[in-house]
């Protein structure tokens, strides 16, 4: 069965006609020619297809396109154009406190090269080898930083009752990024890139944990 849907993809409105069986990943790649999200496993097990929907990181391979009629989708290709330039609060779907970083973090705000600060950090830290997992990794990292800024805990968060932005040490970053596998094993440098970006954001908005009463 065919359905005509409308998606906003990387800021641009697109209205493909898709079979109801088409995943969001296949719609992006095969129907709309947006090739940055990758198909690794096609079963939710690797994270290569990660995109942001409504600002939240999701897997394109387990999402049906027809179920995302009207959605705002950002792929790695469109990250650099995010209006916030990656202050970690691009997550429109997260109730993060809005703040205006005054830019003393070195990579606050859109950069001249059109890359999102998280993408720039992956380059600076060699956070990739073949690059196949990278579009998913950077989308996941952007979504993850927004979740942390909104105070979401993780499996390794000791004290669940602390609210406020999560403090991201290496253990936290590894756990929160565990949904993105890298066949090349570039994890050490991916970690370094995300660690840098977590620090930039923390400087702009220091974690102010308060106990839930």
């Amino acid at each position, binding site marked *: 069965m065919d359905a005509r849907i409308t998606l906003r993809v990387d800021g641009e409105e697109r209205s493909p006609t898709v079979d109801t069986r088409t995943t969001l990943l296949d719609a992006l790649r095969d129907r709309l020619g947006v090739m940055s999200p990758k198909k690794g496993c096609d079963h939710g097990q690797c994270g290569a297809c990660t995109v942001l929907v409504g600002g939240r990181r999701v897997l394109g391979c*387990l999402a*049906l396109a027809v179920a995302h009629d009207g959605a705002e989708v950002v792929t790695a290709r469109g990250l650099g154009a995010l209006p916030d330039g990656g202050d970690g609060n691009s997550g429109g779907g997260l109730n993060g406190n809005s703040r205006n970083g005054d830019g003393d973090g070195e990579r606050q705000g859109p950069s001249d090269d059109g890359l999102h600060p998280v993408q720039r950090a992956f380059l600076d830290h060699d956070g990739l080898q073949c690059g196949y997992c990278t579009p998913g990794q950077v989308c996941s990292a952007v979504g993850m930083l927004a979740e942390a800024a909104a105070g979401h*805990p993780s*499996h390794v968060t000791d004290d669940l009752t602390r609210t406020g932005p999560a403090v991201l040490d290496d253990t936290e970053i590894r756990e929160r990024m*565990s*949904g993105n596998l890298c066949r090349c094993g570039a994890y050490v440098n991916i970690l370094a890139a995300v660690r840098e970006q977590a620090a930039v954001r923390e400087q702009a908005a220091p974690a102010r944990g308060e106990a839930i009463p």
Partner: protein
Amino acid sequence: MIPFDYVRPADPADAVAAVGGRPGAAFLAGGTNLVDHLKLGVTGPDLLVDVSGLPLDRIEETPTGALRIGATVRNSDLAAHPLVRHRYPALSRALLAGASGQLRNMATTGGNLFQRTRCPYFQDTSTPCNKRVPGSGCSALGGHTRDAAILGASAHCVATHPSDMAVALLALDASVVLLGPDGERTLPLAALHRLPGDTPHRDTVVEHGELVTAVELPDRASARHSTYRKVRDRRSYAFALVSVAAALDVADGTVRDVRIALGGVAHKPWRAERAEAALRGTAPTEAGFARAADAELAAARPLEGNAFKVPLARRTLVAVLRDLAGAADGGTRHDGREGGR
């Protein structure tokens, strides 16, 4: 994949009517299990009724102090909710121990309860499986049994239920609100999932067309002293080999209230009533915890590949109770960073 129609119902009653009125119809929520199964050919509905946009996405306190969790609340939002973190830490911990950040942003409360087993033969349509094709046989028996059940299994199916969330909900005495063609009914979560018996194709007692609209958690002192511990083959992004959810209330040196559920050991989240009975009214000691675990696991019938689960479940249960008893004493907190998570 078999072609299917897709609709977005206007409200829950509309969703129930749409699925109830068509034998081949199914609810679609986050899609993280169902879309996978469509691709694998494990299931082939001819109509998907998308409930993910229904206004069932609220978490609210009821007048009786219970917490009502809407069926379409995403797993990530549920885990992060302040009331859940404070009053039902086992639930936050269980959700955060499951899947990945991306999957938790998609997965819903309702869909999580109805996710199907990860038995490799169930997912492989080239092999016999009584759960997928009733009467075709069980490939796990005599095959790969590392993931299989040690409690309550049958000669027809030895699969385990994969949900972390449901194990925590069971220990927290959750109930499930169902909307059907004839109206609403509320079921204790303990009565939702089934043992396989000779009808393993039925995971739950829910009838075709019945929609979960909410899950309710009673406000209990013990729930605040609850936690969840999951043991798996890698540190993150893997299903449980064994897991334990427990809530413990100790007063004046005796166990006043205790609730325990085990995951990864049975066809359904397993309430450890024998262990609870062995603990209630006794002093919370290491020896007592071990006796309680033994009382529960006396009924275990491991297979060749999963015999390790019996001592693993025993040790995990003892460790969780030790942590909770220590925390109740004002002693060591549960430390989410230690091994075996």
